[in-house]
């Protein structure tokens, strides 16, 4: 699955790449690239506003670093650092994303000066208390779904994705509007078994950064709870030269301040 947090890191899928008749597989591949793999590495400062069904707000501010293993779109590493609120500041997360097995995840809790490895059995837990799921952020593996091109409009592809193992997830399927030129998903809707859409991701603002179309604002709405989370990206940057060593346990305790902004 695709969303925006990582969308900022990608290289624009082949500029003007939308040639006439792409296969579904090709669209899916390019979308995956645009959403998660732009550039070899990147950084963004994210401000997160979670507004619950009663209009009560919570705010979070964090930085995300990304590093892609050389080669085709595959293994990736992420580093997350909390700036605010003050009582969770300096908390960090590290993710080694794998395609063939469960991701490796670590967590640093500064108040206890504790590094913990996280063994999670699924990726559908909340991403730092927001309405985004961990899977939205790290990406859903392409081979977990059947993909189907529902229609092509002047500017968009409409794709439908149906999980191969329906028991592993809550949704029955999800649809995705993909911008033809940038291959960025602009709206994703998750439907339950009765066909009702219960989660919606929409992209609010896209800008071209370093020649790459980049999402600057994305919203996830949970229609069952009425809660919504708006992510705003400040100062996204690509190919900042963040070294692979930053994505190790040692840096969980010691923030790589130079690369965080």
């Amino acid at each position, binding site marked *: 699955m695709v969303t925006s947090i990582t969308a900022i890191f990608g290289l624009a899928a082949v500029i003007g790449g939308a040639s006439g008749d792409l296969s579904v597989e090709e669209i899916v591949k390019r979308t995956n690239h645009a959403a998660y793999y732009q550039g070899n590495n990147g950084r963004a400062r994210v401000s997160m506003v979670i507004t619950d069904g009663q209009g009560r707000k919570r705010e979070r501010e964090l930085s995300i670093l990304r590093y892609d293993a050389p080669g085709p779109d595959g293994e990736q590493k992420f580093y997350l650092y909390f700036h605010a609120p003050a009582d969770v500041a300096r908390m960090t997360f590290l993710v080694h994303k794998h395609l063939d097995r469960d991701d490796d995840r670590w967590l640093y809790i500064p108040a206890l000066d504790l590094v913990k*490895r996280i063994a999670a059995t699924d990726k559908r837990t909340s991403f730092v208390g927001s309405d985004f799921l961990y899977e939205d952020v790290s990406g859903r593996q392409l081979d977990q779904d059947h993909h189907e091109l529902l229609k092509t409009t002047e500017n968009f592809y409409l794709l439908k994705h149906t999980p191969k193992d329906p028991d592993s997830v809550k949704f029955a399927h999800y649809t995705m509007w993909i911008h033809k030129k940038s291959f960025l998903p602009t709206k994703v809707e998750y439907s339950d078994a009765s066909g009702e859409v219960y989660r919606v991701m929409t992209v609010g603002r896209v800008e071209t950064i370093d020649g790459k179309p980049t999402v600057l604002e994305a919203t996830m709405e949970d229609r069952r709870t009425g809660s919504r989370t708006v992510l705003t990206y400040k100062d996204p940057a690509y190919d900042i030269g963040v070294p692979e060593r930053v994505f190790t346990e040692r840096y969980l305790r010691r923030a790589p301040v130079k690369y965080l902004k």
Partner: protein
Amino acid sequence: MITSTVLLLLLALLPTLSADRFPYLHPVSIDTDPENMLPADEPVRVAHNASKKQFSLHDGIVVGIVNETHPRGVFNVSTLTKVDEITRFAMELEGVVEVDVMSLSTVDSISQAGPGTVRFQWLMAKPPADQAEADDIRSRAMRIPFLRDTLFSADGKALALYIPLRNKNDAHEISVALQSKIDAIGSGDDGFHIAGLPVAEDTFGSEMFIQMAIAAPAAMLVIFLLMWFFFGNLLVILSPMIVAVIAALSTMGLLIVTGNTIHIMSSMIPIFIMPIAVLDAIHIISDFFDRYQHYRDRRKTLVKVLGDLFQPMLFTSLTTTAGFASLALTPIPPVQIFGLFVGFGVLLAWFWTITFIPSFLMLIPEARLEKFGRKERTGDGDSHDDGVALFLARSTSRGAPLIIAGAVLLTAIAFLGISKIEVNDNPTRWFEPDHPIRIADRTMNSHFGGTYNAYLSLKYSPPPYDPDSFAEGLAEKAQRMEEALSAAAEAVQQHLNSLDRGTILDLLDEIDRFVRQRRLSSESAPKRGAWTTLEGWLDWAFASAEDDETPPADGRSELKETLASAAAEMREASSRYRSIVEEVAGQAPETSDDFLAALSLEIETISTSEDRWRVVGTMLSSVQQEKQAFKDPLLLGWVSELQEFIGQHPVVGKSNSLADIVKTVHRDLTSGSEVDYLIPSHRDTVAQTLEQFLSGHRKDDLWHFVTPSFEEAMVWVQLKSGDNRDMQDVVAHLSGYLEGHPPPVDLDEPQWFGLTYINVVWQQKMVSGMIDAFLGSFIVVLTMMTFLFRSISWGILSMLPLTITVALIYGMIGLLGKDYDMPVAVLSSLSLGLAIDYAIHFLARARQLHRELGDWDRAREAVFGEPARAIGRNIIVVGLGFLPLILAPLVPYQTVGYLIASILLLAGGVSLVLLPALMTIGQRWFFAGDADGSGVPEEAPAGSKE
């Protein structure tokens, strides 16, 4: 009469059967919500609803599953598979709050997975494949104190499914769907129980109809048969039946047409109207019966009968109406409606009785009355009731002192009983003990912490604000932070001195360890903050050291220098911060929030991304977070202790709060063993612990226990009993505790909410309201009686039967240990209505006969003729007539059945025995005025009557 009734019924039925066509009319609406015992704008109820919204709580259905046979209890493959299937089924039902469904399948577990690894997973992602997997689920579940005794029993024999509903009116439909799902799966060796207040309410609604459709008609049938037995003429006794039914139906019709709901109270309106309606009619019929053979002329007989009865009947109806209408003084809307409509029905019944019954009797051909009525008296004691009457007449004369003494004694015992009255109610107990709802209630409460929920809401109370002292506080904090920072930097300098000269990176590693260790061992917040700030500085020091291609030869001096200048910069920033605080205070912001907003704006305009401002940012946000009281470990510890105390109460099975979440997550983030099941001692640890909970599958569960601002929190108390008495006791238990254990942070007065508590509030209002209403109507009726008899002493005399009846009824309730609940409470009004009726009839006729006969001894014998017989027939017909209510499926109706019979018996008995005895003893007083035709002198000592 028929027309108006039919019209009312049509107005009520048409919109019910076809709502679209009659949009301006009110359809029948059933209201079984106990919350409606309080007006919608009642502060307690408003607060209850606000808190429910605040913590996103919904009323719901609870499905209990019990397995007593499997050695592993419910933790076996078959049961867990069923649970999973039912959970998934429930989550897809329309109207279910899917995200809040609680079951083994929908909750998270955190556990240790090897050293340094913590595992987040669904407690039961899918049904277990074998017993080993089921055992694993069991052992992980048992480790979550939060769920134990709430979601499953500690003995592993039972588990529960909580299915919250968007709208509790869907409870019936959803429970039916669940039941059919359970039936389809097959229960096997598992026992399934569907419970929860919404289900009880719904069931109650349907049983209410059964009662109205069966019990009330059955009562009418018995009354009918008894009247037939007494008067022997089918045609004649048809008239009271018609009057009673018409009065009841019209009143119910009017109730519906005026848009009122059918409620537990209003459903009893027919039952109250019918005996009272029959009462008046029986007086007429009885008198008519006794006299017809004397006159053998319908018209003459009726003129005589109505001449005698018109005034007493008017007064009995007015007093009864006054008794019921006084219920409008209670603060409970359903009781008000009940009182007003019964009052209306009584007047209606009176009107039809004096108009319809005579007309009806006139229409009966004389031929059919040939054999009707009592034969002329031929001698003494030739019939059974004559014998009784004569016996009463004589014994009340001879035994008067004894009777009065007995009455005084009984009243004294009654008051002893009244002092023992226990006010209590519990909607679940409105069902009979073998009702499935009661069975579910018993079963689940024996396995779990309790199915009755009460919630305690706790709210942070910020200190009073004024800009100057607020600024002072901020400056003081900054000052302390600065001092702590200086001390910390100094400590690092000294530590550096103690180290060998080495490369910067090595030294940094060493300092890093030192700073971290010092931070963790610091107790005070400013010290911890200072060390954290130094860690921030270390991040930068590391970064520049890593980049430095030509590291300095003397790393130590270099580091000492950078640290010194960083510390100086931070101090400078802090002092700048203090002067900004002063500046902002000069603008006199109106609230502390405004103050902080202005401050943060000011700081942003002058600060850049410079390091030194980090310290200021930290100071500011820590102040901003102070309002988040429920991250304060001291306060959480206080909540924990409070829970521990409240848990000692025998009715409290369990309580859950934010503190329990914090402890559980903390335990599993650290060692996973019980020693770490505690509230960590720092605010940031609490925050970071909760952050892990928020990263699970069920983040929103947190917001049931604390608001996102962390200013308000809730303690969920599970009670094993829904008795108001028990809830009240828990409330008292806690308030005593609170007095001796003030919270470490200022809180508003803790507030209870939840239906179990709401029940207590309306019950308290009901008790005091009923006393007011009863006293009010007592005074009104006494005034009316004084007016009717033109005499205070007669007025007081007429009040005696009802006073003693009410005293005896409530005394009996107290002595028997029957709870004083809602039906018992409103019965005082019925007692008043019925008892005064007998007294008026008896006294009015006694006085009249005394005037006619001029002598009390002869009058007494005469009054035990027709008048006493009418009263006697009344007692038997109406008293026995309402015994079928005992067969009603709901306990409140049974109570009414028993009590109506007792009231009639007592009121009648007291009227027929005590009144003549008193009049015999006090005949000089009572009849003093009659001799010369004037009223009784005012100086009659009122107190002497007692």
